[in-house]
């Protein structure tokens, strides 16, 4: 029964080796997509290149289909998967801050690795900023972690709050992706004038 960690225990070296191996796939996929460059990443906010939303949405739908299929076949115990508790204020305000940092900094934490690996000096500065930010959080506002727990409204997923099963949601997400792909192609041709010449 999957996930593997529910039925077996890995040693620390094995866990870290698994992390590094998955990381190689992660970094490879990000670089393939073109996410090792800030202009490609921020282009989504100027609508002339929607690769960020295409890749993200396709990845989410791929994983969703895979998890649903494995669980429908009885191979995966969905209940054993970790669900981060929801805190609407934290995810709302945190998301706004994160979006601002993403646009201004040009990267997100994962893509900054892909960019550093392909020589982007600005990504190194972004990563230094990230490091300083998490350090400052731990030093000056660690009590926010307690506030998060106290005001969290628990592990919520769309199937759990709606009573509509994951299969239907998966179908809906596929439909949104298909319509979205058409819409994104239209946006790209409409705003192609913003695309940098070089």
């Amino acid at each position, binding site marked *: 029964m999957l*996930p593997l960690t529910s039925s077996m225990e890995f040693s620390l070296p094995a866990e870290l080796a698994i992390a590094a191996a998955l990381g190689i796939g*992660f970094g490879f996929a*990000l670089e393939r997509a073109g996410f*090792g460059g800030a202009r490609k990443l921020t282009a989504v906010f100027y609508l002339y290149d929607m690769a960020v939303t295409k890749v993200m949405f396709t990845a989410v739908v791929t994983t969703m289909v895979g998890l649903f299929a494995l669980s429908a076949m009885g191979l995966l115990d969905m209940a054993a998967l970790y669900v981060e508790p929801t805190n609407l204020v934290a995810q709302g305000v945190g998301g706004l801050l994160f979006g601002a940092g*993403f646009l201004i900094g040009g990267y997100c*934490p994962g893509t900054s690795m892909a960019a550093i690996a392909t020589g982007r000096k*600005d990504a190194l*500065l972004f990563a230094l900023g990230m490091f300083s930010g998490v350090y400052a959080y731990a030093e000056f506002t660690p009590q*926010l972690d307690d506030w998060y727990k106290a005001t969290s409204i628990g592990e919520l997923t769309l199937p759990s709050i709606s009573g509509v099963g994951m299969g239907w949601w998966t179908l809906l997400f596929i439909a949104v992706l298909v319509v979205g792909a058409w819409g994104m192609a239209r946006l790209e041709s409409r705003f192609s004038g913003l695309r940098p010449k070089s």
Partner: protein
Amino acid sequence: MNTLTASRPGLVDRGNVTAVSRPFSNPYLAGILLGLVLLATYVVTGRGLGATAGFAALATAFAGLVSPSHIQSSIVHAKYWNDGAPLLNWTLFLLLGALIGAAISGWQARRFRLTIERGPRIGDGQRLALAFAGGFIAACGAKLAKGCTSGQALTGSSILNVGSLVFLVAVFVAGFGLAYFVRKEWL
């Protein structure tokens, strides 16, 4: 100068740039690949990907170097301290792997460039300062929201986590809302 690459059809020798980089993958194919990596992570570990926790582990390791006794005064540092081995952190090893994986991909597609990504209307110094500031702001957002593009937007959304979907929407609201004001940085 590599004569092999220069003699291949479709490649132009432009002095310092020997070979033209290969085009990026089709975004939908790259998305499927990324999704399969995330699916594999779920199936093996029971949790998804992350990135910010790796930075947090580094920060705690740094704090431990400066003043080990100080670690327990912050519950955040204490969480990443890992009995004195903060560097043996799962997400930090994931990030190290990501560096390697991206280097392999970039090397294979000839996309390595020692450069600074910016629009034509700002200078290198300004761009580097903004990259640092953006990283700082993104870190604050990710710590508050308990995740970033990896941990919330990708990992959480794929199991339909309500908080993750709220995070995802908020990221794009902020990005589109600010895009006009920082257009000089990118366009």
